[in-house]
């Protein structure tokens, strides 16, 4: 971890984002480097700008100050080059496309020919264990299955970077823990880099190589916790004493800096983040 040889995939330098509406500063002076192969979680209370930071990396919002580079290029160029895949809290599947066609969407955008697309979609379906559901419509799938399709879609074109915005936030605890394990196994198989937004402390610790704790008003990095639990992690990992120590570390960082917002302030920040 933090291997000096490892290529820097994401480099955020002095990034500040102020939304014009309500003049809300979502994130301020963020500096963050993420190396190739890392699994980095962004955690913080609602409205701390963690989703905004993810969108800055994906060039879905532009920084007011500072710069973001992905794969050594400006974030805008990286987006144009399809350097990352993204997964949102809801699966954002296209209702008019079958499961296969949804996974195939980014490949169509990249201009892959039909045969190549078909092979890759089959591979991805196998990866997320949904081969039997290739021709189903999204509404015929459970929430967890829909999210697996969404992950398969994000990974279909083998992006160097996977951005995930609370991907399992809407799922029940059991489904969530199972998908955590699946995600880790996919991450290890593909050796990709993941930036993962969550508000679950145990999820962040369980998955990550590093946990970036953010504080609100405006969003800043409160501290970074290195997670030195060995991979592959399993159900037992969650029961190890060291797991609890790390969870406590993250919780204390959150408590120290993350005083709670008034409800209306939180609402203003949330709306700005939309």
């Amino acid at each position, binding site marked *: 971890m933090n291997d000096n040889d490892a290529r820097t995939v994401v480099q955020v330098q002095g990034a500040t984002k102020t939304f014009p509406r309500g003049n809300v500063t979502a994130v301020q002076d963020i500096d963050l480097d993420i190396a190739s192969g890392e699994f980095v979680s962004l955690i913080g209370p609602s409205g701390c700008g963690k989703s905004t930071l993810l969108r800055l990396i994906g060039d879905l919002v532009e920084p007011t100050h500072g710069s973001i580079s992905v794969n050594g290029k400006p974030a805008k160029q990286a987006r*144009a080059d399809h350097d990352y895949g993204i997964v949102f809290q809801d699966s954002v599947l*296209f209702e008019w496309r079958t499961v296969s066609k949804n996974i195939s969407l980014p490949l169509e955008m990249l201009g892959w020919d039909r045969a190549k697309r078909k092979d890759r979609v089959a591979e991805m379906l196998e990866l997320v264990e949904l081969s039997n559901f290739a021709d189903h419509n999204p509404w015929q799938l459970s929430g967890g299955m829909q999210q697996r399709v969404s992950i398969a879609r994000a990974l279909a074109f083998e992006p160097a970077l996977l951005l995930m915005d609370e991907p399992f936030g809407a799922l029940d605890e059991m489904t969530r823990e199972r998908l955590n394990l699946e995600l880790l196994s996919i991450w290890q198989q593909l050796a990709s880099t993941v930036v993962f937004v969550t508000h679950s402390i145990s999820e962040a610790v369980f998955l990550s190589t590093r946990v970036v704790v953010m504080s609100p008003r405006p969003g800043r990095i409160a501290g970074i916790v290195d997670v030195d639990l060995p991979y592959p992690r399993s159900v037992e990992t969650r029961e190890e004493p060291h797991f609890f120590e790390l969870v406590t570390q993250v919780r204390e960082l959150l408590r120290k800096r993350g005083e709670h917002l008034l409800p209306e302030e939180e609402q203003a920040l949330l709306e700005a983040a939309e």
Partner: protein
Amino acid sequence: MTSTALSPTAAQRAGDQVREWLPALVVFVAGIAIWQGSIAVFNIQQFLLPKPSNIVSSFWNERHTLWPAGWYTFKEALGGFAIGSGLGMIVATLIGRFKAVGSAILPFAIAANAIPIIAFAPIFGAWFNPLSPVSKMAIAAMLCFFPVLVNTMKGLQSASPRQIELMRSYAASPFEIWRRVRVPTALPYVFTALKVASVLAMIGAIVGEYFGGSTTALGVLIRSDAQVFQFERAWAGILVASLLGITLYLAVVSAERLLVSWAPQSRDS
């Protein structure tokens, strides 16, 4: 689980279909029977309400007059439907492309959608040759235009912001977003309007003909038959109009099933 439990056999499916349609069929047959019976029992005059059997026999005996007249009117309705709906979709697309124009026009489109456009029917006779089919086509087109315009606009604006954000993450151009997100999202809205428009088109054509038109037109025939107390034939004309209206509606529904088959709600419409 056996495969038969998952995929019912053709016979089972046919049985289900019969069970599903049976109540409606019973109501239909009973309704016709009550109609036929009550005319005899209450001695209702022919000009108030003819017997269904007489309407049907008139429908058959007068087929050489009524059916071509129906076809003539149907073509007017179809032309008006195509022109009005087509323009509605095109204008909605242009409005969606140029947002400022859209916000300026939308209130008027919604207001126009609420006024009884059919009131313009006599005016259209003056604008176009009252004897030509063009004036009826214009009425039908005008009736179809506004619901299709308003619904298409609404549909194009209903695209999910997350789906658009996903497309932006693929560096998609506005045209790609329009083609792959906005248009598919709008389709169910468009079809809702097209179903309404298919009914309006037939109404527009026939009401237009009530104000004058070719003697080979269905509306003209219904009106003149009613004036000379040929009520059975007038009713047979109404039957022709109804059948053609239903045909047009069902054609739209079939197209919807084909194009919007993915929507769970399209299965029970």
